[in-house]
């Protein structure tokens, strides 16, 4: 099968241009990474609505809060390593606490920056933001999902953290994708095990399910692009239907999607949950694909976990 590859950054830039043309309240802030993240395309088209604050992430979030308080809808973007890492306090106190209409869209999440090493990779960003009241957390799976969910975030008042990958990824969705904040997508029906994934791991989950079907294991695949608010209805339904869940995410399994799913099922309908993701560790330098293999973020890991779960019954 020939996969259509696409870039989330390109999709984000397109989404911003579209939002910028239909809503004058939309402004964009950058911190010296706008060419790399492609928000510079918005700056070229709407220079008066783009603010480059230099390498000063805390200030960027504070300025975004002020813009939102004066009626603007700021989209704030830099690398995931620095937002939220360098400005969690500003996000908490100036954006989340007053529940402002600030959309934080970070790129280069997870291990995608490969050779740059652990300082620029992110394993904890999603967990950190998830714990902050009022924040919605979204991790899109591909370019079409990015475009759709960025648009949805604009339609939905309140603060968002949307985490993108630098990698070009296979297209999961046709364009335009019909996605809603807080509604997980069932990509493949199955009855033996459910694989719930977000971000680039959605494609790995689809691949794993295809292999598993050849072994006679019927796996349901769910894209839980919104980690908060989590679509607990869909997750509990699949728990009842399959009796066991594998989660897959390109970040620490502590506090991320795996945690969110485990919290939900253990309170309402306990089934075994096995989490594929980084196991309380930083990354390191290496090619992206090599790192994904070394840290177990592959279809093979999902397959192994699924087999083990099914065999334990």
């Amino acid at each position, binding site marked *: 099968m020939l996969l259509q590859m696409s870039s989330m950054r390109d999709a984000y830039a397109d989404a911003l241009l579209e939002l910028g043309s239909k809503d004058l309240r939309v*402004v964009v802030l950058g911190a010296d990474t706008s060419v790399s993240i492609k928000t510079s395309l918005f700056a070229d088209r709407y220079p*008066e*609505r783009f*603010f480059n*604050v*230099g390498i*000063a992430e*805390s*200030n*960027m*979030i*504070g*300025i*975004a*809060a*002020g*813009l*939102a*308080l*004066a*009626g*603007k809808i*700021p989209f704030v973007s830099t690398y995931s390593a620095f937002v939220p890492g360098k400005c969690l*306090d*500003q996000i*908490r*106190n*100036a954006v989340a*606490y*007053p529940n402002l209409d600030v959309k934080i869209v970070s790129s280069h999440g997870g291990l995608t920056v490969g050779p740059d090493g652990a300082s620029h990779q992110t394993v904890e960003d999603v967990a950190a933001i998830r714990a902050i009241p009022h924040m919605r957390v979204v991790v899109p799976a591909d370019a079409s999902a990015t475009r759709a969910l960025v648009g949805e975030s604009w339609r939905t008042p309140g603060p968002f953290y949307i985490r993108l990958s630098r990698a070009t990824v296979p297209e999961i969705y046709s364009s335009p994708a019909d996605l809603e904040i807080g509604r997980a997508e069932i990509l493949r029906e199955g009855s033996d095990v459910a694989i719930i994934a977000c971000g680039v791991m959605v494609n790995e989950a689809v691949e794993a399910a295809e292999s598993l079907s050849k072994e006679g294991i019927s796996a349901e695949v769910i894209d839980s692009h919104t980690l908060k608010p989590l679509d607990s209805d869909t997750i509990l339904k699949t728990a009842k239907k399959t009796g066991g869940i594998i989660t897959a995410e390109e970040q620490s399994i502590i506090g991320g999607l795996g945690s969110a799913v485990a919290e939900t099922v253990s309170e309402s309908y306990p089934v075994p949950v096995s989490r594929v993701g980084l196991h309380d560790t930083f990354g390191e330098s290496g090619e992206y694909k090599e790192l994904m293999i070394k840290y177990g973020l592959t279809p093979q890991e999902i397959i192994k976990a699924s087999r083990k779960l099914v065999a334990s019954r």
Partner: protein
Amino acid sequence: MEQAQIPTGMLLQKAVKVRTDILEMVAEAKSGHPGGSLSAVEVLVSLFFYKMRHDPKRPDWPDRDRFVLSKGHAAPVLFATLAESGYFPVSELKTLRKLNSRLQGHPDLRVPGVDFPGGSLGIGLSAAIGMALAGKLDRKGYRVYALLGDGEMDEGETWEAAMAASKFKLDNLTAIVDRNGIQQDGLTEQIMPIEPLGYKWKAFNWHVLEVDGFDLRQVIEALEKAESMRNRPTVIIAHTVKGKGVSFMEWDPAYHGKAPDKDTVRKLVEHMRQE
């Protein structure tokens, strides 16, 4: 040039009211930050009862001047000033810091007239920049005022914001530093020296003015000068005294975050009202 009449008599009366409100509400709450509230009274009175264009009946008026209390622990001075301006009843001040009150320990947007939830230090100037940028973008004539603490100068974000405000030529932004010389652990010049403070702001390309922060005329004249400056933000370094108006609190770091008891406050308030 025509000199506008500054109604100093009225403003002095307001200052006494705000100062006594602060003492009473902090004593009632049995906690809070009286020191840095008392030092900022004349600055807030100058802004809310003279300089700022605002309307207590329309706290969300889009064209209003904005006030950002970056040193959010001075919430009592802001709440007292807002109440005396008519944003909410003065009697509500006694609910400060109590359960289910909207008068939280630090300002919260639920309170009419509060433009920014200051509390965690260092963020307010950034937020004021955002408001000022939006004002320019919308071609609105409103001005943005941000009151910063001098201890707050320790925060790196203050200087990130200082750079950005001059980059964006925000002449609709005025920052005021409450230079009362004391932070929680002691004297600013011992804990983390910030002098020469005026030169620092100058080096960040700001228009710098220094005033006696208790002299209403000086404060107001500086606010007027800030307004007439083009293409540059202005900072007014207001030299003040922490705990101003209460002899045993003045210059005592202990009253950064400690409330005096009710009996003491009753005597103080009687004395202040007679003066």
